[in-house]
């Protein structure tokens, strides 16, 4: 399917939406794995944090007491993978007591009424 893709398609707009808190469920972690894989395909990738997904990029996580893998540093790798379109929903962030300086990455803040529009612009997107 990969070869067919290269012949037939323009660069596709794809997005991963994080909406789950980390650790309580695996959605945020496997969403991040998905982002990093997607980055290898030279498409137009966006990443968006909404609802409890904003907690996935909070600074200061320390998982040593439980042995669970701390994946928050991996979000910083997005830049090295040339993923530059990183957004956060303002109302989700503010309701959850977070400011931009609390985050391990520097997303662009968007308003909630821009979220659906951003989803509509994609060829496809996934919510984790």
């Amino acid at each position, binding site marked *: *399917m*990969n070869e*067919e*893709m290269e012949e037939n*398609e323009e660069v*596709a707009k*794809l997005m991963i939406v994080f909406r789950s808190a980390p650790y309580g469920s*695996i*959605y945020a972690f*496997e969403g991040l*794995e*998905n982002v990093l*894989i*997607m980055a*290898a*395909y030279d*498409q137009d990738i966006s990443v968006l944090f909404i609802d409890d997904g904003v907690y996935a990029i909070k600074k200061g996580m320390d998982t040593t007491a439980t042995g669970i893998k701390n994946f928050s540093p991996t979000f910083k790798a997005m830049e090295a993978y040339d993923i530059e379109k990183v957004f956060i929903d303002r109302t989700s962030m503010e309701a959850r007591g977070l400011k931009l300086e609390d985050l391990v990455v520097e997303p662009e803040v968007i308003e909630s009424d821009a979220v659906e529009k951003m989803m509509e612009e994609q*060829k*496809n*997107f*996934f*919510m984790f």
Partner: protein
Amino acid sequence: MKFGILITEGPYQHEASDSAYQFAKAALAKGHEILRVFFYQDGVLNSTKLMEPQADDRHIQKQWSALATENGIEFIVCVAAAKRRGINDTVTAEGFKIGGLGMLTELAIEADRVVEFRA
């Protein structure tokens, strides 16, 4: 249209897999093409041939396997998610193939719609 389906939950515990199966059947009946069903996170657990539900209940793995083979649909079980959960090619049933997560990106590039079934 070209459809893709993403399933992130396992069989029986949540309705996600049942809903995805019914959706897939209805899409095929309407003449749509399903490019690929991608099994991610606990979704990988749908693929095990060791599954033995009670006789009066539906057999989720067999339903899926029949759908794949009768319609020639590609079912991909994410390798990393599968290994973490004890699924490998000694237990995957007919119609399921273990593959990389990149195949989900490829599906998102190729399909007109990818519908996600989750908890």
